[in-house]
């Protein structure tokens, strides 16, 4: 009964989103205000019905309703209740439904928070979002409905959730990523609406910026968390595999990062307008492409979702319509847009331009590496794989100009700068950075490779020049404290973003260069020494969990005779699916991670153990969090909240029946 309700309300939501697609767009075209005014109500209605549908699936999962194919294959009665909830997005069909929830949620929030927008623009934004909703809902209903029934012959027990997904990280990782992917559709809709309206100005950039930042914030958090999850859960200690699915999330992130930088230039200086629009279109196109890669199973990936060519074709068709349509529109309208600002070579505009170019090149490289195997195969030239070294090599080439420019950029002013004053400042910063890097690296490590040195140097270069800029800006005032207070929130956001980037680069450079990894065969009582830490294998004990049993290796770690910690590296066997899972044990700290994973049992009571010493690996994720903090700062900026509030008072007094919740832009 409940599942049918879910299916029906999803169908109703589809009907509403078809109306949402047609009414406002037609209204905006014919300048019919009544049709345009229908948009917010339709958006909220659609959101309510999608939520009902999702609630039905959650209910079915919680009550172990194995008459549903989806619940039977992704859950089991012995699963703890919180994993029963997360199992609703652990499989393909449920994940698509979660996507719809996000899509409808974003659309509803936009419809509420866009009250200060002129009606033609507001209606078009919502109309485009409605169009995207129609596409995804059709897909879900026709191709991947989670409400498919097994009646009358249904199993008494479910197939259980994939053990890999039974992890706290998994609870929030996919929703965060989806929030990001779908959030980019808001930016996309703003760009398309602006192209349709023909008004691409600073105000447009100002409206679209907080939405872009919000989507980017979720993507950043999602990717950071995904990397941490892979590290702690997959049991082989890697944190990034250049897997198609990871690349699928990295590409929109790179584009979104370029977009928030170029939006800043568009908003403040009125430059790069048509480029910004193109990026907004590209951002969402890449998240669609990512969906295609992940959902169609065209590429071999560690995230082995069920493969179905029909689904792939549908998404590919949708992708073609969205990308083709929006690019055609862009080609027709973008020529009318002219960027007014003039600037010279040594200006912040050029630095931002360089940032955009490099980020786009990085995106193209990821795309090339991800799709080339597919092209190769389709051309009948055999299956190939492109190794991690390719990506690592290309990204280290890109890092050098990118980080160099990043260090210079904050010191540059808009329009133009005098090269001589700049030169002195930069030389001083470079000197300080080199001294710090050299003295630190050579005092701590015996061997320093060139690439490690350059990467650490660049991280320190970015840090020092950012600090330099803060000090310089602050000392312009009478006292430093007054000066620091004068700095705007968005300035601090930039500082936070750049510090975070430096932190990530530092973490990656040091952990790649100085990680020690050993696979060893150990008998109980034996010890292994790795980087001054002595690991003693104390023995194996049995463990019993809610829905699994297994063994845990007890490993004590000593440093200079003192016990640092005792780790329990588990190997679990899940009762229902009979699947094995390695649960690594990690002793984490800012300076190093000690990582132990249990392998298989060998002869004579010996066990295979995997022991890692990973220095500074936490810096990477810490950096990701610091970068995300930048997004949060901008969302809290009074400038965006203030303007919407102020303009609300002057406009649309008859709209006061609806709650004034434009503050919830950030939520």
């Amino acid at each position, binding site marked *: 009964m409940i599942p049918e309700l879910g299916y029906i309300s999803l169908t109703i939501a589809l009907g509403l989103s078809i109306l949402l697609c047609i009414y406002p767009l037609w209204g905006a075209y014919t300048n019919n205000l009544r049709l345009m005014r229908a948009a917010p109500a339709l958006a909220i209605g659609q959101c309510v019905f999608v939520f009902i549908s999702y609630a039905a699936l959650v209910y079915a999962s919680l009550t172990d309703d194995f008459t549903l194919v989806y619940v039977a294959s992704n859950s089991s009665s012995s699963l703890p209740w919180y994993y029963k909830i997360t199992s609703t997005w652990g499989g393909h069909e449920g994940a698509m439904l979660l996507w719809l929830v996000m899509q409808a949620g974003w659309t509803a929030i936009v419809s509420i928070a866009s009250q200060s927008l002129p009606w033609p623009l507001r209606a078009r934004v919502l109309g485009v979002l409605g169009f995207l909703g129609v596409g995804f809902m059709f897909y879900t209903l026709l191709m991947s409905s989670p409400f498919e029934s097994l009646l009358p012959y249904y199993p008494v027990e479910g197939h259980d959730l*994939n053990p*890999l997904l039974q992890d706290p990280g998994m609870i929030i990782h996919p929703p965060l990523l989806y929030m990001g992917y779908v959030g980019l559709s808001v930016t996309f809709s703003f760009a398309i609406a602006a192209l349709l309206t023909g008004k691409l100005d600073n105000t447009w950039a100002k409206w679209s910026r907080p939405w872009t930042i919000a989507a980017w914030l979720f993507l950043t958090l999602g990717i950071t968390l995904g990397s941490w999850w892979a590290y702690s859960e997959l*049991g*082989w200690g890697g944190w990034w595999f250049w897997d198609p699915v990871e690349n699928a999330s990295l590409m929109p992130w790179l584009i979104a990062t370029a977009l928030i930088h170029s939006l800043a230039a568009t908003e403040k200086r009125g430059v790069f307008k048509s480029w910004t629009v193109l990026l907004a279109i590209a951002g969402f196109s890449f998240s669609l492409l990512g969906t295609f890669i992940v959902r169609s*199973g065209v590429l*071999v990936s*560690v*995230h*082995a979702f069920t*493969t179905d060519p029909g689904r792939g074709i549908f998404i590919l068709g949708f992708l073609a319509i969205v990308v083709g349509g929006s690019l055609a529109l862009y080609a027709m309208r973008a020529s009318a847009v002219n960027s007014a600002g003039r600037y010279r070579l040594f200006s912040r505009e050029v630095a931002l331009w360089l940032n955009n170019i490099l980020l786009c*090149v990085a995106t193209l*490289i990821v795309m*090339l590496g991800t799709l*080339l195997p597919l092209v190769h195969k389709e051309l009948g030239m*055999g*299956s*190939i*794989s*492109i*190794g991690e*070294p*390719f990506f690592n*090599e*290309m990204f280290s*080439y890109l890092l050098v100009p990118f980080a160099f420019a990043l260090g210079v950029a904050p010191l540059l002013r808009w329009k133009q700068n005098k090269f001589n004053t700049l030169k002195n400042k930069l030389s001083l910063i470079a000197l300080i950075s080199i001294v710090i890097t050299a003295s630190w690296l050579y005092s701590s490590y015996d061997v320093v490779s060139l690439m490690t040195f350059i990467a650490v140097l660049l991280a320190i270069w970015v840090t020092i020049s950012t600090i330099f800029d803060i000090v310089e800006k602050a000392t312009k005032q009478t006292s430093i404290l007054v000066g620091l207070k004068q700095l705007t929130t968005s300035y601090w956001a930039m500082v936070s973003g750049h510090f975070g980037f430096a932190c990530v680069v530092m973490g990656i450079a040091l952990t790649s260069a100085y990680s020690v990894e050993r*696979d*060893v*065969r150990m008998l109980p009582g034996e010890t292994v020494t790795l980087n001054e830490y002595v690991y003693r294998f104390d023995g194996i004990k049995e463990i019993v969990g809610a829905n699994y049993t297994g063994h845990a290796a007890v490993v004590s770690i000593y440093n200079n005779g003192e016990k640092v910690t005792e780790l329990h590296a588990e*190997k679990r066997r899940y009762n229902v*699916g*009979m*699947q*094995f*899972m*390695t649960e690594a044990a990690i002793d984490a700290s800012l300076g190093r991670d000690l990582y132990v*994973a249990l*392998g*298989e*049992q*060998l*002869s*004579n009571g010996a066990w*295979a153990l*995997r022991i890692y010493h990973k220095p500074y690996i936490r810096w990477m994720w810490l950096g990701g969090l610091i970068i995300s903090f930048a997004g949060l700062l901008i969302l809290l900026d009074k400038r965006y909240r203030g303007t919407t509030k102020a303009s609300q008072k002057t406009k649309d007094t008859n709209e006061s029946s609806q709650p004034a919740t434009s503050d919830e832009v950030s939520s």
Partner: protein
Amino acid sequence: MNPRRKKRMVTLLAVVFGLGSAVALVLYALQGNINLFYTPTELIQGKGPEKQKPLVGQKLRIGGMVVPGSVKRDPDSLHVEFKLMDTGPTVKVIYKGILPDLFREGQGIVAQGNLIAPNIIEAFEVLAKHDEEYMPPEVAEAVKGIKHQKPVYNNVKGDS
């Protein structure tokens, strides 16, 4: 040329140069990092219409089913060797390290490594996919028609 045109010319040249060097770098980096995929039959009999065989020393990926009963462990180290097959001859894979959780006899796996003899691969990476019933598509294609052997659970943890 007037200064404006000259400026444009310089910009254009810069863009072309940048693009060119980027493409060159990408191609250079790609060259060493494309790993062709083989099945055991292709490895022995050659791949494609020209029956191309990989050279000894080449880096490649191989996917196939682990031949039941072929897994041999060295008692004193993590050294392990096993045989892979699809529809035809078998090849040997040697590996030192910990095998993935889902590695089982009769199960499809993908190994990445160097060819050290015409039918022996020294693997530095062995992958078994997350999903229990999952087969790498390449392997599934190659073993189409073969009955998928049900994994024997009792043997997995015991000393084999």
